[in-house]
């Protein structure tokens, strides 16, 4: 199980952390890998801090315990930083993708990180400009695909388009795809 990748999503109720974990899981599963996607179920309230998780592996995944030491953390809402412990249990070489208008360097300082990798993206701005609402989950998935290389952007967009089409009007689907593609281009890493 050395190849097991564990991801923790931090968001607020209504921002789509669970949906992001599920859409990512479905897309990665369609590529032939094994996945898990699950939220932490607590009192579900709009705006309250929520968590969701993914496990991804080339081998069948039997673990049914909580994810305690994720190698990757995605933060859908920068106002959670300092409130939710986004670095809890993350190994030193962990990877962070954060929805913020700050640079990776500024975010690294704010989190007090010395190792690992920090990527930032203004996903709220992107979602406002494409979807017309602050729904940062789809653009953050685009950033995740870019930084991890789990799937090619074409694979991911193709699969996600299919999933979204089952639920939304064509124009909404297109706007979400635009958000993913812009995020894929605009996510910033460190020098």
């Amino acid at each position, binding site marked *: *199980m050395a190849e097991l990748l564990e991801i923790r999503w931090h968001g607020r109720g209504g921002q789509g952390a669970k949906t992001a974990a*599920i859409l990512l*899981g*479905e897309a990665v*599963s*369609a590529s032939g890998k*094994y*996945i*898990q*996607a*699950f*939220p932490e*179920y607590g009192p579900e309230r709009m705006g309250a801090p929520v968590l969701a998780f993914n496990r991804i592996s080339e081998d*069948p*995944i*039997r*673990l*049914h*315990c*909580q994810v*305690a030491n994720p190698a990757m953390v995605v933060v859908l809402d920068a106002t959670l930083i300092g409130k939710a412990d986004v670095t809890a249990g993350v190994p030193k070489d962990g990877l962070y993708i954060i929805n913020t208008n700050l640079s990776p360097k500024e975010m690294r300082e704010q989190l007090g990180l010395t190792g690992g990798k920090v990527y930032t993206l203004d996903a709220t701005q992107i979602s406002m400009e494409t979807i017309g609402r602050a729904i940062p989950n789809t653009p953050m998935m685009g950033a995740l695909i870019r930084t991890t290389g789990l799937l090619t952007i074409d694979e991911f967009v193709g699969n996600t388009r299919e999933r979204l089409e089952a639920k939304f009007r064509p124009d909404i689907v297109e706007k979400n795809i635009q958000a993913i593609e812009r995020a894929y281009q605009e996510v910033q890493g460190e020098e």
Partner: protein
Amino acid sequence: MNKRVAITGNEAVAEAMRQINPDVVAAYPITPATEIVQIFADSVSNGKVDTEFVTVESEHSAMSATIGASAAGARAMTATSSQGLALMWEMLYIAAGLRLPIVAPIVNRALSAPINIHCDHSDTMGARDSGWIQIYSEDAQEAYDNLIQAMRIAEHPDVLLPTMVTMDGFIVSHGMGNAELLPDDVAKKFVGEYEPEHYLLDVENPITVGALDFSDWYFEHRRQLADAHTRVQDVVLQVAKEFKEISGREYKLFDAYKLDDAEVAIVVINSAAGTAKTVVDQLREKGLKVGLLKIRLFRPFPHKEIAEALSGLKAIAVLDRADSLSLMGGPLYIDLRAAMYNSPGPKVNMVNYIYGLGGRDINMEQIAGVYDDLMEIAKTGKIAEPVTYLGVRE
């Protein structure tokens, strides 16, 4: 091979129900089983099944309507969790006593009080003496496969017993994982048509169902109920053999994992078995002779086969996700102690850990700690405390 999909336990079970296409489903929603009925209700309203869906005002009514439908000659199903199963309690015994082959997926959830929506096995363990067959499932794949097989087991002429198939609430019911589903035609052919021998709507051959049965015959009928349970194991194995032919997946009475040359082992039910198998793999890499036995068929309890599989071990830990409050440990531990009393070979040291009540997580470190304890017991033969609670603040 069948396509592997990303799916939750509830979705997989609802998909099995769509393929089974029962004549009648009567159900009342309760977290975390609600989705099963909700998704199945979509199949009803979209015309994907021919099922008569009965909306009722409680789980007691759900089980009553299911019993009525089954007695009338229909293939009838329901689904529930926790308090819902508890409210069915009176009717569970009637379904078994009337020998009605009702099949119900049950999503394991803690019982109140305090109120809690998360997983433990208190609900189905409370129904263990009701006369229902109980089959437990580690993940979505097993829940799906077990439900398909349960139809054949329950309706087998040698059995005719209601059957519940369980999975862990939220952990499996709401967690997305991977599973391979059977093509519709293959699943439908495997399940087959239900042709009851005696039923109320057979007006040419009228029968009475639920007659008064005093001291002259009641005992004989209850004895027949026990007798039916003695025939379950063979049918479970026969159905599993046929299921392997269509799915490639192998099922037995229980799952013995790296048990052959093991010196110590954990016995566990449902999703925690998956986590524990991962721990077994890691400890095996270090050269430690550890194994695991996961219960599949819990009622009737394959006590001889389990005792034989565990004989010769130096120490066993039974993990119970329910307490019996008998002060003798959890329900699985109590059964296993009784089973091991007659096991061949020398006495095996046994301990019990009650864990995970109300959804408390059980992680790899805790399970590795149990194996550490077992190896110490195997070495010294000393047990400080046979029944302990794992992962609780005391």
